[in-house]
């Protein structure tokens, strides 16, 4: 390696080259004019901004090539303000480049490290002054101070306790229960099996007393889907088959991966795709995961019909819906 050998010598800063505006008065005048034009373009922009803001109707759309039909008010104020700002900057920069002094200046750096004397005097001062506190001798003060500061430091954490309730059973229960009717989302209409054709998917929610005022926090766990296939196409255990009704199978709509609604149903392949991270679930085998990062199938909801022929849940979900969590199977 060559770092012990002599490197090339530093020829020093290159000779300064003058700009046209430095030597030629006509070029100087031209540069001045250019800078002024840039500043005047800015004022034109501000005038466009003011005019557009006040006099262009906010619901007027104009056709601009390459952009399509766009709102004239937003375009006018945006272009006006944008150019107003831009040309101030362009003018200032052009002024600096062409007319302001452009001789390079050299300044010296100083080492970051303080001098040895400064360092020694720092150490001396700290030792002397801090030494007067005699913390080393006063262990009772030291310990009680430590205890006091430590305990008071806990108080903000304790103050934040009421940020939220403890999870308790909330993640484990939904509104679905035995006998709860299945209604459409949106619309809240109860459903009968004949409302759903083979190859159809319906988005559903449990029937509640006040459907106009469902809480989003409930919907986030209650959302479900009904899919109808031919009964022979289902490949389920006997128990799971009893949770379906005439080829209609119900699943939680909330993805077992990270909670997005799983609702892309491919009628021919009978796959359910979640659009967030592309987890794919196979309906005939009970929404088993066949692709993507989801680790668990969608929980299946047991359904049946009630005495009036409406579709109802036969039981609540037998596992928590939605994304996984630490205590999920406790």
């Amino acid at each position, binding site marked *: *390696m*060559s*770092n012990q*050998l002599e*490197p*090339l*010598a*530093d*020829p020093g*800063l*290159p000779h300064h080259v003058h700009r046209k505006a430095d030597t030629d008065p006509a070029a100087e005048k031209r540069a001045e004019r250019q800078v002024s034009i840039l500043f005047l373009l800015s004022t034109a922009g501000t005038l466009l901004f003011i005019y557009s803001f006040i006099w262009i109707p906010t619901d007027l759309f104009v056709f601009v090539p390459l952009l399509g039909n766009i709102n004239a008010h937003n*375009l006018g*104020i*945006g*272009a006006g303000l*944008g150019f*107003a700002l*831009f040309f*101030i*900057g*362009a*003018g*200032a*920069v052009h002024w*600096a480049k062409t007319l*302001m*002094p*452009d001789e390079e200046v*050299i*300044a010296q750096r100083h080492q970051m490290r303080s001098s040895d004397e400064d360092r020694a005097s720092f150490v001396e001062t700290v030792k002397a002054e801090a030494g007067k506190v005699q913390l080393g001798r006063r262990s009772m003060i030291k310990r009680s101070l430590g205890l006091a500061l430590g305990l008071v430091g806990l108080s903000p954490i304790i103050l934040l306790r009421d*940020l*939220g*309730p*403890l*999870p308790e059973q909330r993640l484990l229960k939904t509104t679905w229960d035995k006998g709860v009717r299945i209604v459409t989302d949106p619309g809240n209409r109860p459903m009968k099996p004949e409302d759903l054709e083979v190859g159809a998917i319906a*988005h559903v929610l449990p029937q509640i007393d006040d459907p106009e005022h469902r809480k989003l*926090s409930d*919907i*986030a766990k209650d*959302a479900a889907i009904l899919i109808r296939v031919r009964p022979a196409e289902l490949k389920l255990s006997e128990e799971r088959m009893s949770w379906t009704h005439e080829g209609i199978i119900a699943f939680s709509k*909330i993805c077992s*991966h*990270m*909670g*997005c*609604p799983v609702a892309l149903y491919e009628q021919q392949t009978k796959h359910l795709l979640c*659009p*967030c*991270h*592309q987890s794919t679930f196979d309906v005939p085998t009970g929404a088993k*995961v066949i692709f*993507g*990062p989801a*680790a668990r199938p969608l929980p299946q909801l047991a359904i049946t019909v009630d005495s009036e022929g409406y579709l109802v849940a036969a039981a609540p979900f037998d596992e928590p819906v*939605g*994304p*996984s969590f*630490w*205590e999920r*199977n406790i």
Partner: protein
Amino acid sequence: MITRREKIAGGVANFIDERTGAAKWVKKNLQKVFPDHWSFMLGEIALYSFIILLLSGTFLTFWFVPSQEELVYNGSYQPLNGVKMSAAYESTLNISFDVRGGLLMRQVHHWAALLFLAAMVAHLMRVFFTGAFRKPRELNWIFGVALLTLGIVEGFLGYSLPDDLLSGTGIRIAEAIIQAIPVIGTYLAFFAFGGDFPGELFIPRIYTVHVLLLPGIFLALITVHLMLVWYQKHTQYPGAGRTEKNVVGYPLLPVYMAKAGGFFFIVFGVTVLLGAFASINPIWIFGPYTPTQISAGSQPDWYMGWLDGLVRMAPPLETYLFGYTISWNILIPGLIVPGIIFTGMALYPFIEAWATGDKREHHLLDRPRNAPTRTAIGAMSLTFMVVALINGGNDLIATHFNLSINQIMWGTRIGIIILPPLAYVITKRICLSLQRYDRELVLHGRETGRLVMLPHGEYIEVHEPISPEKAYQLTQHEQALPLEAPGPDTNGVAPRGSLKSKVRARLSKAMLGEQIAKPTADDVKALEGGHH
């Protein structure tokens, strides 16, 4: 003869100086020298974008209502009349359609946010590839990484405020990540949301974080970041007349003020023009957030796209132990890998300094080719992030280029493992080739393309010697030797801490072992003696 203008200026200066003693340090700082290079302006783009965010954001806060209270829309956007939505969403619609200039300010704010993060990443790359993070600037590097991390969070919270379908989906994902944390996850999630998802408290809470807490931290961090640059003086590229002990450039007054100040207006202007000509985040099309709806092609903003991509490609791993669930498929891409990346980034200056044994101050920048291992590591990390980012948009890529999302996913799963090491090797080779090219330039001059036939019939290409300034610039860098691990002493006893020093020696060899020897003065003289 004192002019009237001088008299007024003198009066003001006197007023201030009598109260603050400012004359001395203002004069000193007005003369401060700043090197002038376009790549030093990337950090400025970030700084000016931050100011634009503060200004446009304040405007928005005058109309935005940070509440999840449900109401029925009855405003000027017909397709949503009668639809139930939160007050936050409704106030955003109000800003977009009923406040003049409101939509423009929303757009300026969001474009400025994208530019803020893009500029920070570009600036980080410049600082990394030129080695500007070396002593004494390691602290500033850590502040920079902190700014980037907080910027990502701030942007995410910001675009989640309008409570629309797209950003609400993002919050659902964030909640799932929190919930997946072992032992304390459900408690953290319930505390953050005030109950189950989505609850009614999340938007008001993130509003406080977004407009008060994080901007406050930003202001403090940016101030410290700039103060350090000011005090330590900016680095400069190597070249004739430039040394480790000087700064060559232009003084603050007038040139740097005019250029930097002008650039602020330019950045502001470009951002507003983007807001005028390019639509961003049209929340009225997405609709208000409800957990039962989702749009095909849902992505976070670009700076979180790599996270989305990592989550998409993760293998479906969960372990179940005594009834407890650990979701590796969420924890690895969502928390562990990003944690490793950002921690590694923050600590890199110290790792490199330990590996090279270099404890000196550095104020001259490295040309990337002269630090081939570092440049290759940078290229490798970038490749990793870009592959992840591409996977984040895999469904849009599939629809636009008629491909299968399954194939794209498998492609990126394999790609993210084999492409980064490939990028490392290729980049390192390119750097070494460029070093060879520099050596040739110094020793043999520039190829002019002119062919000449010598009297005895040989054809040669005429080479023009490069200027002494260029030759100096190409050879100014240092080429340190790798550290060696101390071997066993005369009695065959291995020294203490030998594993640590062996690792260090290995790293050192990787960083410094392979370099093309730069030509010395002797080499040049030898050539001049008998060259063609």
